């Protein structure tokens, strides 16, 4: 029951955020604040949902049905989000925890820390510039920005999307690694002559896990924020297309559906990552 309540709460938060353009408007050089205008749009939206359709939206000059497009768009967004979060979790566990004791990994982390001071959208532009320069020098095409090209070009947006969450999660985990590594029970385990992998898996990983789970939500939130930028700048046709259509007018129905879709996708991603971690533990930790 509480899940349904949370979902309804989320829906209203989405409506309030998406209703932003109707709430504030300018008339005769004065700013007006009219939250009641959102209500009419919301009622219309709910009516349409009640009739069994999700309404329509304009893509360019074509009026298209949201219900038809939402599934393929969602699949694209889901692939991007899921793989990036997966990369973030795997990379930060591997480099932040299991391989942290090697010097080259720490240098790699320093490099990532340096990168993290640059905002993600700037990183995207820098890598586009680098890719163009690379093409000029070697004639090898590594990125394509055409949305109609085959999906094998997914790896570039994927890499771009994975950078932000990876940097964040790796920072968290290596910080916790540093703290837990200094605990007395680690010292005891070492003094008893236990193997380093045993200690890493049974003492460090188990103690890092609660923090990993707590920050997994934040990691997904960062991924979602970056998803908007990546899809927008790299022309990936995904759910954010409903919210920021290029040169298009703002469409309330589509924006609500897009944002709700993204929220539901992030919940799905969260559950899937939890399941993968559970499997990993069954295989590696609690054999």
């Amino acid at each position, binding site marked *: 029951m509480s899940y349904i309540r949370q979902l309804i709460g989320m829906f209203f938060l989405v409506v309030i955020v998406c209703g932003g353009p109707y709430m504030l408007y300018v008339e005769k050089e004065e*700013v007006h604040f009219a939250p009641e205008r959102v209500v009419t749009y919301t009622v219309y939206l709910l009516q349409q949902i009640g009739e069994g359709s999700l309404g329509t939206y304009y893509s360019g000059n074509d009026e298209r049905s949201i219900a038809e497009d939402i599934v393929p768009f969602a699949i694209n967004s889901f692939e991007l989000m899921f793989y990036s979060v997966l990369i973030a979790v795997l990379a930060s566990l591997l480099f932040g925890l299991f391989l942290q004791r090697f010097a080259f990994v720490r240098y790699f982390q320093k490099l990532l820390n340096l990168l993290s001071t640059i905002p993600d959208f700037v990183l995207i532009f820098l890598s586009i510039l680098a890719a163009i320069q690379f093409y000029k020098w070697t004639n090898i095409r590594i990125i394509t920005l055409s949305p109609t090209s085959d999906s094998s070009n997914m790896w570039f947006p994927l890499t771009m999307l994975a950078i932000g969450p990876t940097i964040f999660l790796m920072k968290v985990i290596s910080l916790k690694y540093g703290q837990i590594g200094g605990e007395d029970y680690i010292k005891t385990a070492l003094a008893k002559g236990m193997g380093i992998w045993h200690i890493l898996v049974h003492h460090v990983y188990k103690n890092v896990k609660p923090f990993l789970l707590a920050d997994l939500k934040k990691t997904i939130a960062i991924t979602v924020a970056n998803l908007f930028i990546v899809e927008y700048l790299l022309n990936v046709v995904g759910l954010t297309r409903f919210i920021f259509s290029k040169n298009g007018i*703002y469409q309330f129905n589509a924006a609500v559906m897009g944002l709700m879709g993204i929220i539901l996708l992030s919940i799905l991603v969260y559950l899937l990552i939890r399941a993968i971690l559970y499997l990993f533990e069954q295989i590696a930790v609690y054999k």
Partner: protein
Amino acid sequence: MQKRRVNVSLWVGAVLVMLLIVLGIIGPYIAPYDLEHQEKVRNVEVNGKTVIISPPLSPSSEHWLGTDKWGYDLLTKLLHGAPYTVFVTMLAAVARLLIGTIIGLYIGIQDKPQKWWLSIENAWGYMPLFLPVYFLLVGLNRNSELAIGTLVLLFIGLVALLGAPSVASSIRQKTEQIKETQYVLAAVSLGAGREQIIFRHVLPQLKEQLVLIAVTEMISIMALMGLLGMFDLFVGGTYVTYDPVIYHSVTNEWAGLLGSYRGFVYGNNAWIFMIPLAAFIIAIGSFSLLAKGLRDRFQETYQRTPFI
């Protein structure tokens, strides 16, 4: 005795931020051209041959950073935009800090945890901030009837208000820690009131934290401005021309220029995009250096080294 190491990031960051502030103050006065000055297509005789010169002009001695596609001098644009970039960032961060600190202190000092506030903090923490800011401002910002000042103030207010919960969260946590200390208990038993505890006991402990939060908030606000620029929402107003649809920044603020010129990244005149990009990276980099320096300075000397 271990010699105390010089905190390089702090010094370099502080000097760069000072330079930015100076640039923000004198920028518009030292600009080499007027904002309206436009290079037109013209014929020039070079070695007996007539050559047509048309913008965009690449960087030269006349235009140090070149001109954009429409013949406007880029250095001039950047210098005129500097005050907006630097001071909007700082003002918004300070306003956000003020609101967040007040909320955080008063929520944190309560005896019981305030559930309603915790749920706001929790839910808002997952919201990418540029979404609500974009949606609220997009209707006002394009070809606006409002004056630049009003739009800038509106932006600062919105960014401060919407970003305050995250600041309040860290202040609240710290306040809750300090509230449990012995000297606060002593003050309470001596009859100190709530304001007395907040201003005499909690706030002095938070001083370093507040400075650090202010600088990190500046970084996040600058990134937010850049992000909004990507979606053609520029601080101080977006001027849209139709057919073809082109978005111009009214204030020439750096993040705005970055967003406005982003199409040039794919062309042969990539410097038009790279120059605002460089300015933006330098600005955000100097704030990041300052934050790193401050963090190093405030970090506790007591740190355990891991055994493995």
